[in-house]
């Protein structure tokens, strides 16, 4: 059962990682004048959209999301509305944090918000897919020993690496190399995507090697 779960997760992660790859390569083939640095905003939107769509569809198909108690249309609708609200709040939250970190307040607000959207689609959206709009579950997963399934652990790892990637991505900005990727927010968004992909790779590997130590409490 363990192996099966890990395998399922590895394949989802592989799909996600290939989505990231396709979202970078496909527009380059299809659109003229597309480049990761030059039309960076477009790349970010492509990435956010592709990862979002694939995330939602994969998790919906696999049926990982927690079982709902009620099946009425109204309840589902309210869940959907709440999820959208959470996504929006998370975008705002990331935007605020990035501005507090020193991003210009007014000048490149669009770029900053795009970064927030990208971060949201890489982190919050996955959480929403796996955990649903359930605050208690979120808190449980993100506290220290709160993971209850492989999916929770993988969420912890990918979210952590994504955020750390974005954090590390800010470091090259003050260097005076005058490279195109030092422009705000290129390095941060690339850092977060690289962090996300490495998290996708690291999570199954880590879980595979630590499966003996991992003991999940039953729900």
């Amino acid at each position, binding site marked *: 059962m363990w192996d099966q779960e890990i395998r399922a997760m590895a394949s989802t992660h592989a799909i996600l990682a290939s989505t990231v790859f396709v979202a970078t390569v496909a527009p380059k083939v299809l659109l003229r004048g597309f480049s990761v640095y030059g039309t960076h905003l477009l790349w970010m939107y492509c990435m956010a959209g592709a990862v979002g769509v694939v995330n939602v569809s994969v998790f919906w198909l696999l049926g990982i999301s927690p079982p709902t108690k009620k099946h009425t249309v109204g309840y589902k609708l309210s869940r959907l509305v709440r999820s959208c609200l959470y996504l929006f709040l998370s975008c705002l939250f990331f935007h605020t944090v990035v501005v507090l970190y020193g991003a210009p307040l007014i000048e490149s607000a669009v770029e900053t918000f795009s970064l927030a959207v990208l971060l949201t689609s890489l982190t919050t959206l996955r959480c929403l897919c796996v955990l649903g709009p359930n605050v208690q579950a979120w*808190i449980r997963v993100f506290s220290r020993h709160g993971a209850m399934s492989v999916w929770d652990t993988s969420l912890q790892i990918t979210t952590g690496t994504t*955020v750390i990637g974005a954090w590390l991505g800010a470091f090259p900005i003050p260097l005076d190399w005058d490279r195109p990727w030092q422009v705000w927010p290129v390095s941060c968004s690339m850092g977060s995507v690289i962090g996300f992909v490495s998290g996708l790779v690291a999570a199954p590997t880590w879980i595979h090697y630590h499966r003996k130590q991992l003991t999940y409490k039953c729900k």
Partner: protein
Amino acid sequence: MKVRSSVFASFILIFEVFGIALFLRGFFPVPVKSSLPSKSKLSDMPTEPSTGVSHNSSEPPQPIFNKVVIMLVDALREDFVFGPNGPTHMPYTRQLVERASTHSFIAKARAPTVTMPRIKAITTGSIPGFIDVIMNLNSPALLEDNLIWQAKTAGKRMVFYGDDTWVRLFPKHFMEYDGTTSFFVSDYTEVDNNVTRHLDSTLKRDDWDILILHYLGLDHIGHISGPHSSLVPPKLLEMDDVLKRIHGSLILKEAEGSLPYLLVLCGDHGMSETGSHGGSSEAEVNTPLVLISPAFKRKVGMEKPGTVEQVDLSPTLALGLGLPIPQNSVGRVIPAVLEETSLRDQLRFLHLNGHQLSCLLKDSIPAYEKDAGFEQFRVAEKSHGNWMKLYMEGNTSEVLTNMGKKVLKQYMEALAAMSAALSKQLGKYDMYSMTAGMVFVFQLLLVLLLAMPEALSGAAEVDVPVLSALLSLPFYLLCLLLASAHVLVCTSAESSCYFCSLSWGLVFAAVAFSSALFCILVSMATRRLSQGPKMILGKGGEWSLSELDVVLLVGSAGHTVSLAASSFVEEEHQTWYFLLSTLCLAVFQDVCRKYFREERGGGGGGGGSGDDEDHLLPTKGCHPSRGSSSSDHSHTALRAGIFSERWLALATPPFTLTCCRILRSLNQTGVQWAHVPDMGHWLNSSEHGVVLSLVAAFSLVLIYFLVQRRCSWVSKVALALGLLGVYSYRAAVGNVSFPWQHAGPSTSKGTVEARFVYIFVLGILFTGSKDLLRSQILTVDARLKSRGLWEIYSGLVLLVSLLFRAHNLPVLCGGLLIQSLMAQFIWKKLHYDAAQITIMHYWFGQAFFFFQGNSNNIATVDISVGFVGLESYVEAPAIFLTALSTYAGPLLWACHLVCYLSSERHRSPVMMAHGCYCLALLRSVPVAAYILLITALRYHLFIWSVFSPKLLYEAMHILLTAGVCLFFSTVEQGHSSGKS
């Protein structure tokens, strides 16, 4: 010998200061200066060398030019004139360069390529050493021997228009001047129009000998939009037009029989591809130098311009005008300028230049007689004498001409060799002193590190085996070895070395100290190794790092590593701001976890995972769950109290983050984004005076309420009056306005008001130290003691608020606000240990250093605070006040650390000692790493422009920290003696 860890740490720091001082002395080359304080005089000019016959003239040579116009265009890069775009950018100049009687050169400027040192280089001919910049902070006027002074003494009438740096450097030297300030970088038309508007009337007149024009517009354009901006070509055309006008009017004026004119077009420095300057890249260093005069041969086509040093302009102009060469000039005359004069005059000029250089060489290099250039000069002088003898005898054969040419060549070689020797003297490091200083610092750092387990233990005492080290045999052997090594190095060294020139007693003390340290180091290391396994086992079980610890350790280590990159040194504030934001988020996570876990009975636990930002997720959840618990009305009153406290604790880190974000936009520092307009500029512009007044007044009121809480009532009154005095001082200076004051800014300099504040500062400091002393000596009263400490702190705050500029008062106020909030809701409640609190204080102190507008560049030191309350410049208080206001951020945070830790002593009696030790460690590690780095990077391109100023800042900071640690240990001393 057992020592308390605070005493141990402060002693280590004090010795480290000595080690760094030695390192600095070796690192900064001593400026080449003639030992005579006087200036060159015409009467000191050497006579023409000659053997036998006494017909030689001691008369100064005839000048070549009578009128000189120097047109200096700031940031004029070499390729603007000589490059492929030259003919379109500066058509007239190019035409002159190609086919008029001109000489064109590429003049190489030396780093730092900043206007002021460049002007000094052009006028004095010396290369301003780095240390000069520091030494001359006090006097804006140039006291060294220079061309302008010489010209004035010789009775030349000078007119100057342009950058007011000249006016400050040469006060009362110009017959007529109009300085334009280069403060508003965004203006690039007015600054130049202000120069050009005088041009027509001045050129018409005939009552001047030297006209100097300094155009700033091009530099400003470079700073705004770089060398390839569309603004550059029109500006260059404008400059070209100005040159055309000057040249035209000079041609008109030229009269038969009189000496010709000389028009000089030059740049002070170039500009890099981003438009900035200061470093030593090719684009910043290469400037054009075009000399236009009918005295030169007419050109027939574009030639590749030769390369000269920028300092060569000074002796060339001096000789051309018939003035003595400035004493400290290391330049050599440009031979092309002399081409058309007679051979005798040429030899005479070269002899004068050679004589001046040889005098300088004699003064600055002890072994000057061995120098190749000096010997060549002696030989050349001798053959010059022989030539003169033949010449005087009326010999006019070709042999004489050939012989003269040979002498000329000899002179040129000698000049080149001597100039090179002098320049090399400037770039030479005294490696022996540097190594000695570095060895001291590293020995001390290792001792400090090895003592860590003991110093941070519950007893907070370090066992330093001094006696056993001093009595051991290896100590004496090492002493002998090091002393003999010292003798060996000093006798074999060719160049002068500071450590060798020290007196024997001092050197022996240093040698003994170093060997004793080495013995202590070894014995401590062996002890640590023998205890090692046990210690590690004992600790292994409970030793786990929280996320906050990881952030603090990784951040401190990462900052030290980042110092290796010049950009990170330039933009160090970014590193600190970034780390501080991360710290706030990590603290936030800790707070959330604490209050969350308590609420949920410790079951699930709240808080985030290991990274920095996710912890916000629980806070979102915090609010509804809190809502549910509030329905429980069992202990309403108590709960409400805890509740508001929780809210405040939860709100503190986001508030701190917001506060820091606002403060960082107050002063834009660093290099890359320094030109971005910031709030400080906005507040200081004249139309926002009311806002500035309101902000300053509000900050002062807030400062009062934050500080007065823990003072005695006397201090409260004094503080209130003092802060009022601060406001009236600012009003008197004209920064802020009183609502009832409608007249223009008063003429007084605010001296009275400032002195009024000083009195209260002294009063508060006095009551504070009185309380402190009483609590130390007479009674053991912890409350009295903490009040005394706080009063000293509030006295410092008052002094700093007087020294800070009006727009920086929010920085002070924000710092106090963060301190009190953090102390009340975070540090106390979350039970952080002394090490964590110390690191946090240190980080905040560093960030506040940059918040107040400092950078790692010497230029941002605000020298004007040295004059607050003083009518004229007095050295000691000025230096003290400048240092205090520059380091106000780190100092205030360190003082707050003392206050806080001493008030928290009941929690753990050794907190003070731990804090002191951590502070010493936090400061020593980056300094030691930095001097190692700087030794490795000593031939780096940016060593003078980026790394050395930072070294000075680091040295100053460690001196300050040593002082704070000493204060720590005295305060702690009283405590432990009171306990026993």
